[in-house]
């Protein structure tokens, strides 16, 4: 019983109580968090209190919601009332505590879920590995010497290590999908604007998305359904009414046209990446290929926009407190702040052109597949990776396959593939805007067939499955 829906059912049926579940969760966190460094804040008393309130409401015959008593954690750029929103930084420690929960936290609490903590991230979300100079690295539960991916590494680890059944992260250029892949769990980056960003610390407004991690497709769908919906407090929140995915899950592949992305997405990766992709492609019987044109330029344009928006966001902090930044983020933010406006504008024009190309592609295909990362999780501290005989920087290149797609806000699930004697890898299921239901259906088929799964590794005594 370690998925959200089972926990909720067990509490509602009286098999266990919310308080018992939360106490177990907190014990598990106490045991494992020192090994994996997932959580930066643990809400002990608050979580127990919330659980007790929930148990009283249940006793009075109330229905608290679909996620009754389910513990969850959120990336620490998410406002939690009474807690300072760190966003992985030292500078934010000086801010006053958040006065209210972020919209997504309120929505999940309204569904009965219980928040147990905030998770480590790369400083200000500018990273793909969650190696943070202030708070340390998050450790991959499948091999503690390896990174969890980023920037939502702590959130992914919380789920992958079995601390909580689901968590929230954010994705700007890959920061949900990369850690989902490297930690071997499911991660959803919804359509841009589908999930409220209100009450979350930003990075690049053009690309920031909030989304869930989970160890099952059903859990991922249920959480996403709780988060969908217009939020008038978020200026980019979509007006479209929610399109629930959980009720669609068992509809199978009927009518879904599938293709594998070639070109940019079919090269520049280690062989096991394509093995993992191949497993998924074969299971789905896909023969069609599709070319997403100029994907390498899309990645470049996303980089420029991120650099400029990030630099602009942090300009005052860079002026006043440059040495309080993580050195890894500081110099990049400084460089971005100095980029000429024409680079940014040209990248935003290219974005329109590219969006039109994908719109045309989605006339004849419904779900596109691509790898999530070019390699398995690198070692903590590793600077470079060898791809096709060339040494390239490890960290920025973890996003080579994710960045061209978040660039235009497409909904994507990274599904986990566990090859034998291997660290986990991910495959991206990509759909046209607002078609989350289709990628959920494909993910469910793969899960039912046993092609994708998110088993929790045994972490006792820091042992790992890899060495």
């Amino acid at each position, binding site marked *: 019983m370690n998925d959200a829906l089972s926990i909720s059912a067990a509490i509602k049926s009286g098999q266990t109580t919310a308080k018992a579940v939360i106490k177990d969760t907190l014990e598990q966190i106490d045991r494992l968090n020192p090994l994996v460094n997932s959580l930066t804040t643990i809400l002990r008393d608050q979580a127990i209190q919330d659980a007790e309130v929930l148990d009283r409401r249940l006793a009075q015959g109330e229905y608290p919601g679909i996620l009754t008593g389910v513990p969850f954690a959120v990336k620490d750029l998410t406002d939690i009332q009474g807690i300072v929103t760190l966003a992985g930084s030292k500078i934010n420690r000086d801010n006053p505590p958040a006065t209210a929960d972020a919209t997504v936290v309120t929505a999940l609490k309204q569904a009965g879920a219980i928040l147990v903590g905030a998770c480590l991230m790369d400083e200000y979300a500018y990273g793909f590995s969650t190696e943070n100079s202030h708070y340390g690295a998050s450790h991959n539960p499948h091999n503690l010497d390896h990174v969890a991916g980023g920037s939502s590494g702590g959130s992914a680890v919380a789920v992958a290590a079995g601390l909580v059944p689901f968590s929230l992260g954010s994705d700007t250029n890959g920061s949900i999908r990369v850690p989902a892949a490297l930690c071997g769990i499911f991660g959803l980056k919804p359509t841009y604007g589908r999930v409220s960003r209100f009450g979350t610390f930003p990075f690049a407004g053009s690309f920031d998305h909030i989304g869930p991690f989970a160890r099952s497709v059903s859990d991922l769908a249920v959480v996403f359904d709780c988060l969908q919906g217009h939020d008038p407090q978020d200026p980019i929140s979509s007006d479209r009414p929610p399109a629930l995915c959980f009720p669609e899950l068992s509809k199978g592949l009927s009518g879904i046209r599938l293709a594998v992305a070639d070109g940019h997405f079919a090269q520049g990766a280690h062989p096991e990446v394509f093995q993992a992709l191949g497993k998924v492609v074969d299971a789905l019987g896909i023969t069609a290929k599709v070319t997403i044109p100029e994907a390498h*330029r899309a990645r470049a344009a996303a980089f420029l926009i991120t650099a400029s928006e990030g630099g602009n966001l942090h*300009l005052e902090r860079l002026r006043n407190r440059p040495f309080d930044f993580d050195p890894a983020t500081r110099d990049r933010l*400084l460089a971005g702040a*100095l980029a000429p406006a024409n680079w940014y504008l040209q990248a935003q024009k290219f974005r*329109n*052109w590219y969006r039109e190309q994908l719109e045309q592609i989605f006339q004849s295909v419904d779900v596109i597949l691509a790898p999530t990362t070019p390699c398995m999780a690198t070692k903590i501290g590793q600077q470079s990776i060898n791809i096709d005989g060339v040494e390239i920087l490890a960290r920025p290149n973890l996003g080579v396959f994710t960045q061209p797609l978040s660039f235009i806000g497409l909904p994507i699930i990274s599904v986990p593939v566990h090859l034998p004697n291997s660290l986990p890898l991910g495959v991206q299921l990509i759909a046209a805007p607002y078609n989350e239901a289709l990628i959920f259906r494909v993910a469910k088929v793969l899960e039912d067939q046993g092609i994708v799964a998110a088993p929790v590794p045994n972490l006792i005594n820091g042992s790992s499955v890899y060495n």
Partner: protein
Amino acid sequence: MNDRRLATLEVADIKVYLAQSAKLLNLPIPEECEQGVLDNFVRMQAIAALVNEFPLPEDIEIAPIFQP
């Protein structure tokens, strides 16, 4: 037709650009950060070339749409 490729600045010229644009933005670059900022900017220049060299129709607008 003009060559769409922007001139690629050499390191010496980039240093001048960074120093002057930092002054313009009132963004002091600490001496210890100069090399890191330079390295990142050199990388960014190459990345920008990928975008800037690509011909786009003249009537294409920037992606974000303002809603009054």
